């Protein structure tokens, strides 16, 4: 009965804890206008790390904007957790919509949730700017307030294929996806573009978090490809790269913006050397600001910025900029902000933001990076490299 007693005793402790944490909140009501920016993405569940990366980027941007002193209003952050699942997305979206102070939403982070939530946002006239939902058809469905602040899979997949075929002249490619929305979408485009160019393509799927990548690596090697495209995130690309090296893979290895992250090198060690990574981002022109961002981020969160952190940071700053303009003109209405964002021209750390009339990202340039030693080095835009 010892343990039951303990549990009984634990309850006053828990109550005490709640009382203590309860005292923490409740310091609102300072003067001036308050605008809220919501983020819809996976803040719990299986994909929480990606959501965390984005949330950190957003919160950092908001904090810096509030601290900068050139806003005569205050920006607040509202999390709307959809766990990365389509069926949780409408409720999450509703949470942002119900809060009348929310003037714009960053997200939905994933394409599936975006597909269910965008309609709800449209009906509410609330701007939903996604920095990471890359499935091409999202902007063709007539969602009125959905803006995609990232090039879609089509451009990146095509860019990968173009570089492999035109520059490296490969003849056989294995395309591996990670069985996520993102990986499959990208791999589909890459596969199609490669096939159109007359390249022999073998398509394989290795679900995320596979317990052992050795078999997957063997499967790649046994096809004797000239090149490999891995469409997925660095968490899985890391061990996969290791196993590929062990299996004796000696072709060109290429991956996407989900892998284009310093942590890929940390996970894969020297097996990552030579990997080509595409990304719709460029840091060549903004090196100073990017370094500052990375330093600020690391200082605040005690870890390096991850996939989509800088993108979310950019999108947040872009939205804040527009809010500022509207605020000066009189007031910020949801619909007005949607219209303003549609016509935006904003230069951020990662890229220049502007949208076409469907809310699609206009700048579809893809850039190439390569892992050399323990850093990811910028090579140039795919179009320039192919020449």
């Amino acid at each position, binding site marked *: 009965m010892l343990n039951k007693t303990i549990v009984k005793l634990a309850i006053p402790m828990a109550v005490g804890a709640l009382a203590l944490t309860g005292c923490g909140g409740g310091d609102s009501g300072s003067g001036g206008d308050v605008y809220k920016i919501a983020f819809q993405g996976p803040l719990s569940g299986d994909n929480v790390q990606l959501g965390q990366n984005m949330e950190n980027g957003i919160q950092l941007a908001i904090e810096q904007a509030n601290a900068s002193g050139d806003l005569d209003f205050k920006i607040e952050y509202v999390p709307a957790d959809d766990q990365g699942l389509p*069926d949780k997305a409408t409720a999450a979206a509703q949470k942002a919509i119900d809060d009348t102070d929310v003037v714009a939403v960053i997200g939905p982070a994933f394409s599936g949730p975006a597909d269910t939530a965008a309609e709800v946002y449209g009906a509410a006239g609330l701007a939903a700017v996604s920095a990471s939902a890359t499935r091409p058809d999202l902007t063709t469905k007539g969602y009125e307030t959905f803006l995609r602040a990232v090039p879609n899979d089509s451009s990146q997949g095509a860019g990968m294929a173009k570089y492999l075929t035109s520059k490296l002249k490969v003849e056989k490619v294995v395309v591996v996806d990670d069985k996520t929305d993102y990986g*499959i979408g990208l791999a589909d485009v890459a596969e199609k573009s490669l096939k159109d160019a007359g390249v022999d393509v073998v398509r394989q799927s290795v679900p995320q978090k596979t317990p052992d990548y050795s078999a997957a690596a063997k499967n790649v090697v046994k096809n004797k490809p000239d090149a490999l495209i891995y469409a997925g995130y660095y968490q899985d690309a890391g061990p996969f790269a290791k196993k590929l090296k062990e299996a004796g893979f000696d072709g060109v290895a290429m991956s996407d913006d989900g892998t284009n992250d310093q942590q890929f090198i940390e996970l894969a060690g020297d097996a990552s050397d030579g990997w080509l990574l595409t990304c719709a981002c460029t840091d060549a022109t903004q090196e100073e600001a990017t370094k500052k961002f990375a330093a600020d981020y690391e200082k605040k969160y005690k870890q390096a910025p991850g996939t989509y952190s800088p993108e979310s940071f950019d999108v947040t700053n872009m939205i804040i900029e527009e809010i500022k303009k509207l605020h000066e003109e009189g007031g910020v209405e949801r619909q007005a902000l949607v219209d303003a964002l549609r016509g935006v021209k904003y230069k951020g750390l990662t890229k220049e933001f502007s949208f076409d009339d469907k809310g699609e990202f206009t700048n579809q340039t893809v850039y190439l990076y390569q892992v050399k030693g323990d850093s990811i080095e910028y090579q140039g835009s795919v179009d320039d490299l192919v020449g």
Partner: protein
Amino acid sequence: MSMKTSTPAESSRNESMAPSAAARLRKVHWYQEPRWRRLGALLALAVTFTLMTGEEGTTRDLFLALREDFTGPGLWLWVGIAVLVWVVREFLSDQASGAAKWTKRTASGPFAAVREAWGSNASLRVGVLLAGLALAVFGPLGLERYWQQVLVDQIAIFVLLTIGLNVVIGWAGLLDLGFIAFFAIGAYSAAYWTGALPVQPPVVLNNFLVIPIAVATCLVAGVLLGAPVLRLRGDYLAIVTLGFHEIVYLMAKNAESVTEGVRGVKVERFSIDLGFFSYEWKLDPMPYYWVLIGFTVLALFLFLRLEHSKVGRAWTAIREDEVAAAATGVNTVRYKLMAFAIGASTSGVAGVAYASKVGYFNPENFAILLSILVLAYVVFGGMGSIPGVIFGAAFLVWLPEALREWVDPKDRYMYLGALLVVMMIYRPQGVLPSRRRKRELEMAEAGIGGADATGPAEGRQQ
């Protein structure tokens, strides 16, 4: 509650031994005394609480959270509380229990009155039930839209699912760890018959017309799965149903030419067109809610009839002692299959309703974790008791959503897990257990229960 009184079996065992050996066995070191053990356990609990409420760790510096937690003020705070609780418990127990008794006494008066009125007054019961139903139907109109969405997308759907699973586990006593597979089959049936999948159906149907078809599909799937595996014992059945779920889930994910895989399916929403009357369900969650309430009430009505019919009694017999049931002429295989299929058909309805509400779904909505969670909802609420499982589902689906406001959303399931453990230690019969189930558990605790699939482990009593 001291060690001695709480474990009569142990003390009686000690007494039955030879005195010298018993004396040797009974020799306890000072730290083995209950009082000090309780202190040790409380301190361990304090450390756990410190970690639970402490710093968020990072992969960049693996030791960060541990270092901060063990050097920060949180640890001292928790240890202080633990020692305080211990002191009150050990040295001021008379006063503390006096206060507890007083609270209990004052509270029990009105409670008893209510309970008596409930038991004796039939019109009061009917009145309260009607009022409850009215509240369930119209109450949510007053909620925020966000909670309406949660209510429909998650709570109402899961309530329907747990009602179905209750038939399988609570009534027939079959441990089913793959229940969500049938939910998936229902949802994909809806997608297929409304023409949303890459493979086209012979005729495209309205969502409402799909429901009977989905029910039939799930019935067939239930029978197909059930027939070969129902001769397995409880735990083997559990893993096979789990395997079945995994196979269905992976088929949905991998057979892209049929199911679109993780790209997901976009399904039409509910609509009625009778010529003279037509209505389309759109973004507003409430109309879906009323449809779901309708399904739930219908299912409840049918199941309650079943529970008190010959079938229900057969299930009870199977659950309590399968061998005895078979010996007295109950066709166990037939009734087990029936439970399986009926449970499955309910989740078929849920699947169609779900697909028609969210409008878009992919295989990740039917992950294995959900099968496990649904099971937890049923047991938490009280197996075999309809109000219990409804409460269990509603509460445990609501809780993580509400926890979002109080704790870091990433930690929600940590608290949910802790709650499940504490709850099962305290109230293994669930929050609102059925009378029969409660009695079975009491008998088991006294050591006279049988050992069916969900029953007590054989001979665990010391």
